[in-house]
């Protein structure tokens, strides 16, 4: 294939990934099967890496494919698979069209200290069992949050405005959907990131990917040795400078004839723009030329090595540690990480959790708060697919380390007894898939009943909404006064689905509610006796 056609090919594939990535987050009609979603997200790098630390599963090997692609062809991931990368391309493309600026970019030096520090910090945190920095910087998760917090409300708003109009015209293809409002505090960080990403992409193309993004930095580091690289063939080059000015990664210097391939996101725009066929994309040759070209123009880089300067040793350490961690991840050695986790404090219960609840509730399949908090990158996919909207983003309910990770909010909804969607779609292994049967006995929290808050007690009226909604009879109505019955709870069969809390009519405090289990337990199966009753079809008791 001619190199010129690589760009259109890249655009087509990237649009596929962008559109579907956006749609699985925005969808509010159960349009995609859990199977489709999880296969679609197979290649997302950061979730896959986090997942392999949790589970040695084939479904977690997407990152290996990406690594292989990078070793062969450079950062094709960043331009064709990463939804945030493609999103930035879309933003810059629109802005370039609007501003009619033909040559929007130019070569700049890499921000090595910043990018390797952020990558190092991400890895160090992960080694010590905290996913916080990855959570904040991961492109896939940030993209997910943008979609859930900002795109979805817009689409939903349009849907809810149009649907009633169509319905009154007898067309029922759309129906309104009401989602629980997301708290503004939760939206602040994603909003700041959205502004940062848009601003950077408007002004500097792919600067986010080459300074902030830990995935970009890691893949960039690897792509320095990629087999197939872009390089400038000095022989044919007429120094027209087009490639330099079209490169959104600002990694091509036509003057020096160099390509900093660690920052190249493999968009192939330069291949298409070069009038002299001087920009090449081929094996081996490119690597040599790029390395040679890079070395003379990077005197700074040499002083950065620890032999020469101890104060910058941190940078090198971080590189080493990430290589180490990457290797450990590769071989699925997670003992190191597990051992370190013991040092991470439990979620801070005192600050934000209501007095009568001791722990937040993490979704079924997340094993324990500890497991969940160290594996969830808060991409909000589970929030998006949860049919009852019980999964809502937290702010600091899990503590700082669990910033923005979803929690079970029983005021927003309750966990559907037979639903296992969140575990089936979770790309990081924070929520592991459960069979429906396992789900039926997975106790994520336990019920607590405050008799003196109960409307039956306070108002002497019948209610029973909690018992009505309880799928396991952990909440049963027992005789109270006269005809009245009052709830009685059985913690052993409770799975903490929160149906009772959700439906309980008392305010401001609910008479019945669920307190989280820091480690999920196995509930007893409800004991039911088979109803024995002779039915005589000839007998009408009236």
């Amino acid at each position, binding site marked *: 294939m001619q190199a010129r056609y690589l760009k259109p090919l890249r655009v087509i594939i990237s649009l596929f990934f962008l559109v579907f990535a956006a749609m699985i987050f925005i969808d509010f009609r159960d349009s995609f099967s859990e199977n489709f979603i999880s296969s679609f997200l197979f290649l997302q790098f950061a979730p896959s890496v986090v997942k392999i630390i949790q589970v040695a599963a084939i479904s977690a090997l997407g990152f290996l494919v990406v690594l292989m692609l990078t070793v062969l062809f450079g950062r094709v991931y960043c331009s064709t698979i990463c939804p945030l990368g493609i999103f930035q391309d879309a933003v810059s493309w629109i802005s370039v069209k609007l501003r009619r600026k033909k040559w929007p970019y130019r070569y700049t030096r890499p921000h090595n200290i910043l990018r390797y520090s952020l990558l190092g910090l991400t890895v160090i945190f992960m080694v010590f069992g905290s996913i916080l920095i990855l959570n904040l910087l991961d492109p896939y998760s940030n993209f997910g949050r943008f979609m859930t917090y900002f795109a979805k409300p817009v689409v939903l708003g349009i849907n809810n405005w149009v649907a009633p109009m169509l319905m009154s*015209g007898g*067309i029922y293809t759309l*129906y309104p959907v*009401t989602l629980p409002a997301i708290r503004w505090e939760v939206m602040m960080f994603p909003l700041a990131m959205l502004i940062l990403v848009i601003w950077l992409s408007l002004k500097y193309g792919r600067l986010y990917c080459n300074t902030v993004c830990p995935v970009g930095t890691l893949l960039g580091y690897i792509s320095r040795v990629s087999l197939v690289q872009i390089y400038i063939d000095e022989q044919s080059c007429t120094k027209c400078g087009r490639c330099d000015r079209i490169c959104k990664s600002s990694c091509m210097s036509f003057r020096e004839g160099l390509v900093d391939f660690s920052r190249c996101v493999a968009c192939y725009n330069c291949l298409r723009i070069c009038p002299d066929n001087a920009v090449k994309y081929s094996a081996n040759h490119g690597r040599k030329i790029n390395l040679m070209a890079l070395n003379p123009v990077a005197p700074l880089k040499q002083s950065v090595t620890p032999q020469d300067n101890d104060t910058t040793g941190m940078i090198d350490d971080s590189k080493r540690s990430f290589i180490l961690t990457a290797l450990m991840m590769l071989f699925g050695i997670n003992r190191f990480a597990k051992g370190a986790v013991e040092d991470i404090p439990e979620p801070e219960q005192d600050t934000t959790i209501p007095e009568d609840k001791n722990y937040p509730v993490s979704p079924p399949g997340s094993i324990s708060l500890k497991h969940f908090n160290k594996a969830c990158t808060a991409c909000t996919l589970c929030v998006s697919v949860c049919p009852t909207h019980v999964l809502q983003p937290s702010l600091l309910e899990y503590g700082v380390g669990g910033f923005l990770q979803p929690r079970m909010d029983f005021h927003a909804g309750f966990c559907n007894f037979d639903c296992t969607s969140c575990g089936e779609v979770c790309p990081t292994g924070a929520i592991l898939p459960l069979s429906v049967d396992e789900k039926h006995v997975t106790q994520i929290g336990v019920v607590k009943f405050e008799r003196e808050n109960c409307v039956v007690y306070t108002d002497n009226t*019948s209610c029973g909404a909690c*018992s009505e909604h*309880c799928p396991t009879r952990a909440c049963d109505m027992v005789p109270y006064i006269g005809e009245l019955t009052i709830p009685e709870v059985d913690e052993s069969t409770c799975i903490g689905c929160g149906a009772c809390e959700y439906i309980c009519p008392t305010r401001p405090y609910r008479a019945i509610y669920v307190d989280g289990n820091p480690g999920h337990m196995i509930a007893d199966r409800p004991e039911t006796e088979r109803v024995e009753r002779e039915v005589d*079809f000839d007998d009408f008791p009236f």
Partner: protein
Amino acid sequence: MKRREFLRKSVGAGFVAGTTLSFTGYNKLFGSEIPEADTPYDLVAVRGGEPEEMFDKAIEAMGGLGNWVKPNQSVLVKPNIGWDVIPERGANTNPGLVKRIIEKCYEAGAREVVVFDHTCDNWRRSYQNSGIEAAVNAAGGRILPGNDERFFRDITVPRGKQLKEAKVHELVLNADVFINVPVLKHHGGAQITIALKNLMGIIWDRRWWHRNNLQQCIADFGTWRQPDLNIVDAYRVMMQNGPRGVSEDDIVMMKSLVISPDMVAADAASARLFGAEPHQIGHIRMAHELGVGTMELENLSIQRIVV
């Protein structure tokens, strides 16, 4: 549908909806709308068959569904689809019965048959897993959402003791004929749930009822509007752990069906099938006292059919 036709229809529908809603006093309207059908019996009970054939026998004994459904009318069929469980668990109305009712409505000349419930579990899953969505589609009816407050309109309940107002789904207000198709089952809060209780699926704020004397609210709401016909599914009857049930252990194959234009009578007869005395069930007794209908079965002409 062509664009012009669509525009015309939407304007028309909007106008009708708007003007309908600007009037009040629906009780009288509905009161007069209840057809004084020449039915041979006040109540028909069938035992020992499959839901479809029991309904066929019962409606035949009642003189045919044409007594209630006239040509070109729109019909609302309101089953219980409250729960995301499979039909074998008996928590929702039998899908086969719903299908047969819709077919009979079309046979009687209905213009359209719509179905909805304001479900307790997630409505999409409840519609699917109850088998009712598939049944409705197979019969040519339309199953519509009942999950959004925007569908609900304010009504008043002047004869209610406790309940004075409610929000009712517009599909109920718009339908010419309202057929209530509850399932008979045990209920932790309301003792048992049949026809009267099934109407909690056409209103919006159920929590208020739970907080404010549930039994009285159920009975009060019965004074607002009687469904034109009540068809009680007592095929698989959940005898314990209702209304959701835990397993098929809760089920007795009662293989029965009760139909009556009188909600209270239908509930009284079904309660007896269940093994309860109607006057012991708070909302049945209260509805009887409010004159919604009668629970005194001995004063009614009843046809009993064994299949």
